């Protein structure tokens, strides 16, 4: 199983938050490695998140819900 973490944003502020602005996959979808699965927004830029491996996705956070950097937003098994 692989956890998908919210990207790191700030060394000085471990509690730095961002949001998942769009999920491009639904809970339980099958994904291939490299598939675009989400777009997240941090202060400096918008970032596209791709699947690190193939498998079945479990979504852990909702769109527009504040997420702390480095915390899991989904897992793939």
């Amino acid at each position, binding site marked *: 199983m692989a956890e998908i*973490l919210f*990207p*790191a*944003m*700030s*060394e*000085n*502020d471990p*509690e*730095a938050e961002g949001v998942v602005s769009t999920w491009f996959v639904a809970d339980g979808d099958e994904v291939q490695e490299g598939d675009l699965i989400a*777009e*997240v*927004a*941090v*202060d*400096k*830029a*918008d*970032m*596209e*998140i*791709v699947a*690190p491996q193939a498998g079945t996705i479990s979504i852990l956070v909702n769109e527009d819900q504040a997420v702390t950097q480095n915390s899991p937003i989904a897992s793939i098994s």
Partner: protein
Amino acid sequence: MTVSPDGRRLLRLEVRNAQTPIESKPPWIKIRAKMGPEYQELKSLVRREDLHTVCEEAGCPNIFECWEDREATFLIGGDHCSRRCDFCQIDTGKPAELDRDEPRRVAESVTAMGLRYSTVTGVARDDLPDGGAWLYAETVRAIKKLNPTTGVELLIPDFNGDPQLLQTVFESRPEVLAHNVETVPRVLKRIRPAFRYERSLAVLTAARDYGLIAKSNLILGMGETPDEVRIALTDLRRAGCDIVTITQYLRPSVRHHPVARWVKPAEFVEHEQFARQLGFAGVLAGPMVRSSYRAGRLYNKARPQT
């Protein structure tokens, strides 16, 4: 909002900045975050050696791309800067004690990473009698001693324009000596109050006169006009600057200066062409370009051909 995340009371300026919410971004301010194996390995190296990189301290969105290609920019002198610029994510405050072992660790990390070209920058150290000149110079020397074929690009503060301190730094002979003016003179007074436009130009001229390749950076989107950008590029070229990067301001947090405008990709192309016509040997312009982005490749375009 009256306190920062680390519990410090906000400056009046930060309170005013925070009244403007984080802007939504145009579609070209987007990157692909792929946390690949090289990225992960570099992350653990940086932790293990207790190093700082500007990639992390400034929350650079290109970190996944650069680190996957094993390109990183070290930040020496600690993670607290003695000056505050309204666009910069690096914390301002009293810096930690001078770490005289840092040059060795940076040099060994360059070896461990197998870098052919390394970029080093640092915080301003106005708390030290030499402004950190020894630390900057020693880091270049340490890298070169351990990695004789590795090029070094050194991005420095202005050392208050002190000729002797600049000499100390220049003697370490980095392949590229960078000092960023960052913005046009009218905006600089407000946004980078501890710096002076003319003094920064003089630092570049001094580097050129010493025989080094001089490099600078302009951040757009902080209130300047396209005409002022062209004037600043002309000033830089006249001052002896050989390489220039032109970038979009990305606001680090709500406490920092609001984004005045999103410069369209086409305007970056125009500035790039204008800069080439002025005779810059290396020019890189674009919304996601940062001043150390692809630094090795840019240096190769500007280096003396052998």
